[in-house]
């Protein structure tokens, strides 16, 4: 116990000030297309990336469909009007004759990654992670490739996958999130710049955690990455996504798509730590995070688990979902969402039970402080033919301060009489009793709050892979710094 208290106090000491630690801009030449969006811009993006005809058609279809849509307004969010013609849709670090070794990679860039703490070099080899770092839309460097290739695992940037595994990309692209899905999915499908592609072949258990760090860099650029993960029969992979962005004054739009396909008896674990710039204490600036994430568990006994720690972004609109289409499939969603200052988050999940004996668990922990608004919005749906389904949902909200809001909007649709669906939600502030107890034992209030919040979020934190859990815990403390009292 004492050890734990010390750890936590170190943790808070570690991050005094509570300012955005990753707020710097690195000076790298970027290759930028002018502001605005039209068919020519899309053709240009496609041409720059040397894409085949079918992909260009896919983009153009998505763009034409996007033109018919209006931004969704149903979320419990106050989103200022976004001028979609005032965004740069493509920014790529200038290629320097194709870096063949680490020495050839722009040292500025390596420094940026170093400051982010990404173990891109030896440390990373030791830590056993393969990192596909996405910086302003184009994958710069991918490591551990050879080792993964031995097992037949494909882990590369999206554009590379288009070049080298077109049949795989063509087979799976847009199969889970169609470009007709929603406004931001259509936009992403039209202009996506890059992202990651993972394919785990039959029967292969990926020996390491796959990880991508995203980082928005050039000023005024939106980032539209696209991730596609396919786990074939009996495969297993754990995928980590972490986000940090430099401090900026103007809002930046981020509209990503993550698609996951899980085949028979395969398992995918997708973990996210999201810490984009949330705007300053007055609510100026910050990233708009409008993301569509969905997994299709189409195999028998397949399993998909989403774990997310959301501390950043001025506005978050994100619902990682599971479509449970294979018999006995399982979906899990564990989330901690922290908002402070003037942040707004409307996040949750969808569990769509289409096949018999599918099960799902949702654990969502919201923490709101300052003037922020934090909403959980989730859907649990059981289709008429899905017999014997089971869902358990728990969403708790913690309020720190009297100006913030915590909301819960669960949708439960049951169309089968053998399903058991449970939903529970509570909202309260930190108990005075617990605080008093800590104070009594000589723990100052702020530290006590840190302790209690970490304990509150532990159920979710425990689901994160080791490497992430530490960072996530730090983030949680940084975020709550100064918001108590």
């Amino acid at each position, binding site marked *: 116990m004492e050890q734990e208290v010390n750890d936590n106090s170190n943790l808070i000491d570690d991050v005094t000030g509570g300012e955005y630690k990753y707020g710097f801009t690195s000076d790298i030449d970027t290759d930028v297309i002018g502001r605005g969006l039209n068919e020519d811009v899309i053709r240009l993006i496609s041409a720059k990336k040397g894409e085949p005809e079918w992909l260009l058609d896919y983009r153009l279809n998505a763009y034409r469909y996007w033109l018919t849509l209006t931004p969704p307004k*149903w979320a*419990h969010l106050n989103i200022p009007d976004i001028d979609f013609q005032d965004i740069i849709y493509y920014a790529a670090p200038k290629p320097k004759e194709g870096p063949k070794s680490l020495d050839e990679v722009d040292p500025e860039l390596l420094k940026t990654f170093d400051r982010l703490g990404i173990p891109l070099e030896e440390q990373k080899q030791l830590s056993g992670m393969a990192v596909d770092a996405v910086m302003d839309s184009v994958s710069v460097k991918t490591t551990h490739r050879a080792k993964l290739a031995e097992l037949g695992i494909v882990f590369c940037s999206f554009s590379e996958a288009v070049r080298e595994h077109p049949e795989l990309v063509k087979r799976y692209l847009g199969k889970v999130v169609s470009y007709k899905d929603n406004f931001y999915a259509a936009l992403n499908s039209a202009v996506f710049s890059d992202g990651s592609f993972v394919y785990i072949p039959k029967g292969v258990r990926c020996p390491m955690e796959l990880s991508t760090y995203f980082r928005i860099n050039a000023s005024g650029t939106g980032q539209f990455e696209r991730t596609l993960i396919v786990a074939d029969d009996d495969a297993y992979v754990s995928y980590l996504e972490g986000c940090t962005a430099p401090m900026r004054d103007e809002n930046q739009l981020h509209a990503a798509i993550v698609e996951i396909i899980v085949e028979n008896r395969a398992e995918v674990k997708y973990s996210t730590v999201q810490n984009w710039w949330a705007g300053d204490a007055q609510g100026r600036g910050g990233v708009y995070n409008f993301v569509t994430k969905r997994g299709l568990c189409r195999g028998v006994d397949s399993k998909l688990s989403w774990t997310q720690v959301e501390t950043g972004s001025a506005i978050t609109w994100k619902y990682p979902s599971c479509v449970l289409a294979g018999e006995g499939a399982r979906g899990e969603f564990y989330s901690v969402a922290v908002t402070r200052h003037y942040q707004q988050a409307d996040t949750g999940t969808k569990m769509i039970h289409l096949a018999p004996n599918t099960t799902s668990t949702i654990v969502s922990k919201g923490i709101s402080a300052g003037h922020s608004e934090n909403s959980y919005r989730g859907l649990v749906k059981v289709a*008429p033919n899905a017999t014997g389904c089971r869902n358990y949902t728990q969403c708790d*909200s913690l*309020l*720190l*301060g*009297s*100006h*913030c*809001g*915590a*909301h*819960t*909007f*669960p*949708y*439960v*649709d*049951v*169309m*089968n*009489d*053998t*399903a*058991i*669906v*449970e*939903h*529970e*939600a*509570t*909202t*309260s*502030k930190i108990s005075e009793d617990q605080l008093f107890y800590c104070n009594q034992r000589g723990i100052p209030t702020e530290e006590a709050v840190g302790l209690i919040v970490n304990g509150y979020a532990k159920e979710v934190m425990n689901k994160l892979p080791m490497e992430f859990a530490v960072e996530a815990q730090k983030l949680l403390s940084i975020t709550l710094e100064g918001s108590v009292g």
Partner: protein
Amino acid sequence: MMGALNQYLELFDNSRHDIDNGSAGAMNRLRHDARAALEGRRLPDTGDEGFEKTSIEAMFAPDLGLNINRVALPCDIASAFKCGVPNVSSLLAIMVNDTFVPSATLLNNLPDGITVMSLARAAAERPEEIDRHYGTAASLDAPGTALNTMLAQDGIYIHVDRGIKLDRPLQLVNLTSTPVPMLIPRRVLIVLEEGASLSVLTCDHTMKDSASAVSSQVIEILAGPGSSLNVCDIEESAPDQSRYSQTYVTMHDGADVSIGGMTLHCGTTRNEYSVDIRGQHCQCHLGGMAIGSGKQHIDNSSDVIHSAPHSDSRQLFKYVLDDEAHGAFEGSIVVTPDAPYTQAYQSDRNILASANARMHTKPQLLIYNDEVKCSHGATTGQLDEQALFYMQTRGIPRQQARMMLMQAFMAEVIDTVRVDAVRDRLRYLVERRLAGFDASCNDCSTCHTQQ
């Protein structure tokens, strides 16, 4: 893009004079505001948030008649009706369609300080009272309420003077009896002055040979400081009937309001409860039960707003759905920044008893204050197999065991009814309902039979 609403707007514009003639005072004044509020609006449809499963647009789309000219109905209907509650001499007030029918027992037995009368008459005879209260709780922003306000010509006005407590329940009976498909706009205004206390039992019945009808009902309840109100609303209508009922409650310091909506037989029903807790130390209980079979459609929606400190609210809704019945529940608790020390709880429990029954649930919390304790829970499942098995091993036939479990499941809602006689009555009705009998009384053959 006005759809079903258009026909009523046209009707109103063409018959404004006749409608006014059939009513009086504040009711007429407000209907013009309502007309203005409906300009350019449409009735909610399944595409609208909060109405996912019930289309009000579709409910009001048929070509329905309105009794604008106040054609008198055969007066023996009310006298033939005998839905008395055993063991309690309740006071009976009857609405036949949208017209208040005064009964002799009511007029002779009403204690001093309590008014139960036609709303239209009250608007004419006590204008200052009705002006002060009518339309103050209901919101014209809701298209259904605005439509009701625009068309309603009569209803019931209940007023309980300061400190007066009615010792027995008041029974309001809504009878539907129409030879042609009709829209029945009905209005109820209940005003409780400081410290007043009242129990109300309302029930909806459909006469045997009645054509289909859509009832649009707006109930306004103004609960003064320290007042106490207990409403048990039992719907026993017929499969071809539709009901859109909106209840608005305003609560002041120390008020204690308990409302239970029990849907036993219906066609398509949508009940909305909006409770505005403006006072401190209020207690609000909202309860609901729905037993659905056949193709019945039952949708309850609640919206409890806490805008003052130290008040408590509890909500409990339970559904048992069989055959192809559809159920929906949408409840929300809103705690404003001005309402610290609020305790608000909401619970929704549902049982699906057949493969084609459907349940949609959306319990919501919107909390803008940190000094609160709020929670909600929702479950949808089926009867406990183990309990059924246990009962069968003890020699209880499966069918009976199922009924016993359902009865026990509903007991929690029944227990929220505070008047003993009404509670016993409800328990009896639920038992009969679950056994598959129609819920009408043994000694009365006037109601629509279900079998």
